[in-house]
């Protein structure tokens, strides 16, 4: 019963094959089997957003997905948000706007915000606050995070080709 299952998925643009136990979450698989520790565990029950990844085009908590469910799917993690040496505009504005302190929630916020801006490039403050309500940050009080997302949206609107 606890045998390992073969799974094949496209992660950050690379076809990856791995073995996992069905009880392992996608988060465990990413972190413990594939060594991609950018997705963080804050609560392990879908209430903090630190493990956010984009799976088959939608934002999910990797802790609420079984690794085996990734079969045949497409996953983007924080490790796949920058393209080579070029930071994503969100990564740039998070730095420039001082939107992180300890940084543990940052990968989840950036992935979540990317999912939003990919879908709604004109998201305003109210929409951003609503979209990010599933991502907890205890350091910043959210102010600078919301500013960083607004600023990144601005950058992305001005340079759409880059994104």
């Amino acid at each position: 019963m606890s045998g390992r299952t073969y799974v094949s998925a496209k992660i950050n643009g690379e076809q990856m094959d791995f073995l996992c136990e069905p009880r392992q979450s996608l988060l465990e698989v990413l972190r413990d089997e594939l060594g991609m520790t950018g997705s963080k565990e804050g609560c392990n029950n879908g209430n903090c957003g630190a493990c956010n990844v984009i799976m088959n085009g939608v934002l999910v908590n990797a802790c609420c997905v079984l690794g085996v469910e990734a079969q045949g799917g497409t996953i983007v993690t924080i490790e796949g948000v920058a393209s080579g040496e070029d930071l994503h505009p969100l990564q740039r504005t998070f730095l420039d706007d001082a939107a992180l302190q300890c940084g543990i929630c940052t990968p989840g916020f950036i992935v979540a915000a990317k999912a939003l801006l990919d879908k709604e490039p004109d998201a305003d403050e109210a929409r951003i606050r609503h979209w990010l309500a599933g991502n907890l940050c205890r350091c910043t009080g959210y102010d600078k995070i919301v500013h960083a997302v607004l600023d990144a949206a601005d950058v992305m609107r001005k340079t759409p080709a880059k994104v």
Partner: protein
Amino acid sequence: MVIENKPKYKVIGTRPVRPDGIDKVTGRAQYGADIHMQGALQGRMKRSPHAHAIIKNIDVSKALALDGVKAVVTAQDLAGPGGDVSTLPDAAQNILASRKVLYRGQAVAAVAAINDHIAQEAVKLIEVEYEVLPHVLDVRESMRPDAPILNETMRTRGPNPGDGATNIVAHTVAAFGDIERGFAECDVIVENEFSTKMVHQGYIEPQAATASWAPDGQLSIWTTTQGSFPAREACAQLLNHPISKIKVTPTEIGGGFGGKISVYLEPVAALLSRKTGKPVAIRMDRIDVFEGTGPTPGTSIKVKLGATKDGKFRAAYADMAYENGAFAGSAAMYATMVITAGYEIEHVKLDGFDVVVNKPRTQDYRAPSAPAAAFAFEQLVDELAEKLKLDPLKLRLMNASKEGSRGPMGMPFKRVGHEECLEAALNSPHYNPPLEGPNRGRGVASGFWFNVGLRSSVNVSVQPDGTVNLNEGNTDIGGTRASLAMQLAETIGVAFEDIKPGVVDTDSVGVNDVTAGSRVTFASGMAVHEAGKNLIKELTTRLAPTWQVPVEEIEFEDGTFKTKDGAKSGTFKEIATQVVGRGVGLTVSGSVNAGFLAGGGFAHAIVDVEVDPETGKVTILRYTAIQDAGTAVHPAYVEGQMQGGAVQGIGWAINEEYYYDESGRMANSSFLDYRLPTSLDVPMIDTIIVEVPNPLHPFGVRGVGEPGIVPPLAAIANAVCHATGVRQTQLPMSPRRILETTLGIG
């Protein structure tokens, strides 16, 4: 807002991007749980299901028999006989209990297995036989003579030790003037009783530690900690192992706020590693964090404040009981240092009671003890303002502490910025237009935290290209690589980008005390300044023969070395490249003991709320945080501290609490039901940085991490009172509580 002329700094006051930033926005940064060592085992703790019980027996045989389980440890594996560690008995019992469990969630054993799922199954197979005892959760109930006693040997430290066992750890008395005469001189006296609930720091990263015990006894520990040196010290004592054989490497830390000072997992992982010969990683889950780490005390505070009819405070009395959780602490003692420190009051008497209850051993949380004290005191200040028909800010300004006023422990304040914060509030765009609309209210409150100095040590090395490495021993919890590199750049006159800061392990730098008490940018900044001065001195010495002038002929000013006659000169980088690039290496250090008290910091809050009269829900409409930063080294990071403290305070005020059921179990030990504010629950937090330079620091820096959480509880309570007409004496001011107090429902 700059209050006084400050020197023209080149780097201080700018907003560079933090050196560790890229790693943190790309997922590269390695936090506690990200340490994956080849062949590592996974550990899990077995925890008590009871709030208070005697441990009769622990049977680990079934767990050990499970396939994949490599070792089990209990308190018997700790340093002392029977699991007692004479030098740290409470810490030992807190990480692995041997005789009694004093709270639900206290660890009693630990397992190492080939993966976490098996470790969890093994934990369930450990059989612990308990004799359940009556428990006590409320601080005032625990002080009663008939309360269940947690520790039979406890006697109260303080004026009246008593002869029997007690739950009162200590009674701290602070008295100035003549309290009875003081109240007799007052025209107006207000008094009330307040209470707050136990709350958690709520850092998003759970504790995680990995230990590797080599056959020669070298113990390496990687851990997410606010104190790698204190962790080394604690492990040395708990394991009876020399500190020379222990190396603690702090990982990146995902928040702490005071909660990651104590060790929980490190010694246990070390024991499991010693037993198995393999590295062992233990990671807490969120329930472990809520139930098994150190939240901050719930309180019961009775306060009385009197003033003359023109508004001058004359006398104040407070009786403050603070939960310490299962073991002795000192929160109430801290409270006596801060509750009245913001004001000049001639006659003061403060009784602080530290009390054990059957809850987790409490720890510091951002300005520990001060927010609850301010919640009580700053509401009375508002009541006085109402009674005297005075503006609440002007009343505070009239009485505010300033240079020379009596501060914590009776010591006179050096230059502090309470008055300046209040003036900034009075002149702010938030305070001036009146608040309009039904069910709305505006509140203000001041907050004080004493800040600490303590010991810091840094190493600075010049590289052949003239850039400088700065190695520090304090974890970078929110931008201190940047704030320390900036101070070094300022000291030696180079660009921020020419400093490469790093956080190093305990083998690689002198002793550093905790990353707490708002001390790192302050005290480690002093060490950095010291190291920078040493560096200039050493470079000057080495430069003299090159320039063929006596050392005394060389001056360093504004980033440039030059001879007094001006004939020769060179920038720091030019000279460093010459001297070190072609010569021998150059490393200097800077070490300071910045003392206990670090000058103190004041903060103020203005907040507008709206209260739904039908549901009791409080919405924060607008919030302005004002704080004296001394000198804001990196203003954006200062703002971040203020905003973060404000929102933690909003959570504490409105929704956060340890909610206990009858059995002594925390019923809401998840991020679903322990309600940290989300982005949707708060507005933008406006900030006003006040800069009243701290005379204790070469650049005038004050600690800024903590004071911002002190005012919001009281400011929101004052605002809710203005919106509803009902004074809020208990936290949290949840919808349930507001309905109870405004409509009598409940």
